[in-house]
């Protein structure tokens, strides 16, 4: 391997230049989206990134005259509630399957694993009927219930709990710690990397989810950001600066999370991608 003191080869410079151009192309849609959100309607036909008179008026209009703020809070609440539930239940089941010996353990694991083969699209019709029969259509519980536990998370957490030494758990048992406390206070802290990966996956998945929220919601107060944005954009048809402002608001939270947690997110994606 070449060390740092080696002169920079022309080949490396060419590679770097191409990669840089590619990176700019990748960021172009996001950059133009933000750029348009600070423009007036008559300026969005210009290719200039920063307009001569940037404005916040689109954002002000969006938050004052549409229900975007409501959708934003709905999305945050739904994604947070789902994530907390998934973290708790998926690790509880994963932990039990990894660390308890009991009859039927294999069957339970195989059954939960087999749910990974079932695509969401196949379940939305029965879910819709279930929600209708239970009076959950167009409600927050209706939005949340299909995702509060996942086969993927159980599988991921089981893999990681298997790496936790039994000695730790037995030591706690000898000290008289209850089984549930052993799970929360001894086992959980040992799998924090897996928990953070699962949290990132679940939050992102729920923040961007579209199909089920589109199906289960019908009144604007319950919409999540993607559903709201879709209906809002349909109405605003040619007012692209407003649509881009809505899109920017939908994108901003994940970008901010990425800026702060970049390392964990990429590691989490690799962890979840390869183990899952």
């Amino acid at each position: 391997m070449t060390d740092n003191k080696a002169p920079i080869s022309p080949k490396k410079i060419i590679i770097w230049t191409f990669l840089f151009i590619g990176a700019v192309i990748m960021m172009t849609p996001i950059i133009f989206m933000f750029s348009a959100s600070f423009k007036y309607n008559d300026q969005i036909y210009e290719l200039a990134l920063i307009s001569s008179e940037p404005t916040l008026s689109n954002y002000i209009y969006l938050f004052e005259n549409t229900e975007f703020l409501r959708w934003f809070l709905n999305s945050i609440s739904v994604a947070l509630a789902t994530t907390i539930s998934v973290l708790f239940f998926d690790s509880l089941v994963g932990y039990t399957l990894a660390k308890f010996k009991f009859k039927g353990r294999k069957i339970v694991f195989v059954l939960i694993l087999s749910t990974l083969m079932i695509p969401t699209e196949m379940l939305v019709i029965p879910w819709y009927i279930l929600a209708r029969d239970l009076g959950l259509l167009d409600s927050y519980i209706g939005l949340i219930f299909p995702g509060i536990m996942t086969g993927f998370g159980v599988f991921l957490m089981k893999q990681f709990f298997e790496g936790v030494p039994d000695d730790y758990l037995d030591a706690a048992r000898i000290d008289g710690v209850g089984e549930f406390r052993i799970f929360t206070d001894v086992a959980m802290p040992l799998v924090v990397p897996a928990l953070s990966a699962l949290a990132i996956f679940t939050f992102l998945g729920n923040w961007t989810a579209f199909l089920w929220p589109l199906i289960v919601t019908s009144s604007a107060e319950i919409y999540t950001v993607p559903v709201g944005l879709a209906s809002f954009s349909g109405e605003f048809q040619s007012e692209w600066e407003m649509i881009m402002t809505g899109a920017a608001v939908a994108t901003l939270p994940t970008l901010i999370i990425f800026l702060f947690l970049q390392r964990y997110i990429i590691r989490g994606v690799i962890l979840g991608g390869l183990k899952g």
Partner: protein
Amino acid sequence: MSKRTIAQKRAIWAWVFMAVPLVYFILVRFYPTLDAFSISLTDWNIVGEKRYIGFDNFVVLFNDPVFWVVLGNTFEYLILGVPISLLLSFIIAYYLDQIRFGHGFLRACYFIPFLTTAVAMAWVWRWFYQPVPIGMINLALGQLGIAQFEFLRSTTQALPAVLAPAIWAGLGFQIVIFMAGLRAIPKTYYEAAKVDGAGAWQTLTEITLPQLRPTIVFLVVISSIGFLRIFDQVYNMTQEGEGGPLNATRPLVLHIYKAAFDDFEMGMAAAQTVVLFLILMVITVFQLRVLRHDR
């Protein structure tokens, strides 16, 4: 206390911990799965009585030319999307892995689109594709003196135009997974190849690619499933979310959505979800086969 009672106590705890999740998985995963199969055998408009009609829905489906167009579109997304996205992401990952200067910055630029909301980005791309003077792409082409593209208005260009943001958004994930795969290849292999006088191309085809086989299989399967399930982009980029023009972009999931929640033909929609399930099943079995073969 005897050993047996401790084991029994543990088993009781295990079932206590799993009681709620088990009920949930049965109620929200298993029962709905069986229900979907059952509904696929009925003629049902959601409010009236379910009428069992055997496999009639499937017969109707396979005699419906529109359904074949939809299936064709679905596989077109797959056949275009998988090779293009894997080739691009591999090339980028392969070279990005060799770069130290600005590595983190470049990686972030490639990765960020993966974190975006598909609905939001669909509208950004839809804007880009508009004719002059609105659409950025045609505006830029116009300034360069190049002819305009119809994009979403054309029956031939619309599908690739809808596919582009899906590929774009998935690249970051594939690049990160490829780079993890590249890092996992032992350095000694490359050193041995160097000693043997292997060139860059030979090293790539005889060491890097064979070593990346599990990574490639994984990405082919994951991205195949993703492209077969495309929905958000099509719903948001086509007129009225119809998958037009003239069904030219309509994929299976959108067809299911329309049948179930616009026309309330639940039996027909459920039958299509069964078709989707079977297609995805074949891909998963293929993956398990290949990976088992490797071991």
